[in-house]
């Protein structure tokens, strides 16, 4: 059996639909998980009662359990307590919860790395703790942690392949289903590798552009 380009072209519409689902799920989860990360890191650093403890527990729970189990929990576990989400949102929620924990830790580390003197200086200038966070802490923390934030986003895109187990027809699901029906494993697996590679490389590229712009004030 040799590499059949004609077959690949024939399957292109299906694969494109799958790729679109992968992009939608990942993009949604990237944005939401960053929001969780900011909220979580801020709660931890500002030592907001209850919220801070909640995020400690959340991060430990997510970091120390397999993503696959989390996905099944959202899909099969939540309905038993009355929460029935559509499949697409099951995928978004589980990926968001997973990446949110890592983004919380990334940003918390970034905030911790911002020099303590800056915090004291902000206080001396009369800035509130939230103003410090918004105007000084986070802008610097984001610049420091950009590589690890990107790293988590990359993992998120790659891990989005797991959502095919709950029936979401993403790129992996489409490709594996074609393999199951047409048995052209070489073509489909090549498409998978190329597809995810292209997605992740373009993500890395845009973050590099962003990093370049964010660093502009610090360059001479």
């Amino acid at each position, binding site marked *: 059996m040799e590499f059949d380009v004609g077959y690949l072209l024939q399957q292109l519409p299906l694969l494109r639909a799958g790729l679109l689902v992968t992009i939608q799920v990942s993009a949604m989860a990237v944005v939401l998980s960053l929001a969780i990360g900011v909220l979580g890191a801020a709660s931890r650093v500002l030592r907001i009662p209850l919220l801070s403890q909640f995020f400690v527990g959340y991060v430990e729970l997510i970091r120390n359990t397999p993503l696959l189990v989390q996905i099944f929990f959202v899909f099969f576990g939540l309905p038993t307590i009355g929460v029935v989400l559509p*499949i697409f949102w099951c995928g978004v929620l589980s990926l968001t919860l997973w990446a949110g924990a890592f983004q919380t830790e990334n940003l918390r580390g970034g905030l911790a790395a911002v020099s303590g003197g800056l915090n004291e200086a902000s206080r001396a200038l009369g800035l509130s703790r939230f103003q410090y966070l918004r105007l000084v802490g986070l802008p610097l923390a984001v610049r420091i942690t950009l590589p690890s934030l990107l790293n988590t986003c990359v993992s998120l895109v790659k891990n989005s392949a797991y959502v095919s187990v709950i029936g979401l027809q993403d790129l992996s699901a489409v490709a594996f289903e074609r393999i199951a029906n047409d*048995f052209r494993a070489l073509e489909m697996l090549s498409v998978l590798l190329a597809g995810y590679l292209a997605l992740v490389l373009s993500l890395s590229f845009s973050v590099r552009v962003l990093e370049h712009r964010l660093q502009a004030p610090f360059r001479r």
Partner: protein
Amino acid sequence: MKRILASVAAVAALWLGAAQAQPMPPLPAAIRDQGVLRAGVRCDQPPYGFRGADGGYAGVEVEMARQMALYAFGSRDKVELQCVTAENRIPQLNARRVDLLIATLGVTPERARVIDFSEPYRWGGSDLLVRRDSPIRVLDDARSRNVIMLRGTTQALWFDANWPGMNTLRLNTISDGLQALLQGRGDALAGDAATLIVIAARDQNLRMVGETFALSDAAVGLRKNEPEWMAWINAALARIKAENLYTGWVEAVVAPDIRQYYLDAFSAPRPHSR
């Protein structure tokens, strides 16, 4: 009395001996040197292949694999069983992880392009499992609804070919499909009737629709162009049938009230359906 018993025993021994002596073609050298049969079986398809109460492999198709090991190497233990899913079984075979599939494998033209099939050893139909209060009474009722099916199965192919564009939820294992059906994520679960009968008998909240579709033959799957191996497998299947082993295997794992379907599947001629 003693003499009668002795002669009965002698006749029985002769008859058994004759069955034993049924000539088998030679085992291919590669398999013989391996010293063990590597068979792909299902782990989620009772009564054909599933995990028994002790967590070990059980089911009619598992017994077939063990029996073939007995024919080949003189011991039912000379078999290395491997769990395969509907989706990964043919890739597993072609990647040489197993040497034969006895894995509820239906004979289809698409599959025949990439693997070879033995003589069929039974037939199998498809059906729909629905919740007891479901309005679905016949197959056509499911057309405008959301049907759960497993990727890469005969049913998925049938729906793709006959009702393209219908609403489906595609999962990987029957247990995922069942869970999704019970939670209302779909209106019906399409699957092998043989499997669904067991589930419906166990769960009062579910029933079968009872209209058979996508009827197919199940056969042993081998890699393309292994004629010597194929001849051996076909001889082994014929011998299992001649020794009437299927009945005992079915009775061992199927409750009496639903047993007839499976006995028919292995021995009665194939019915008609769409």
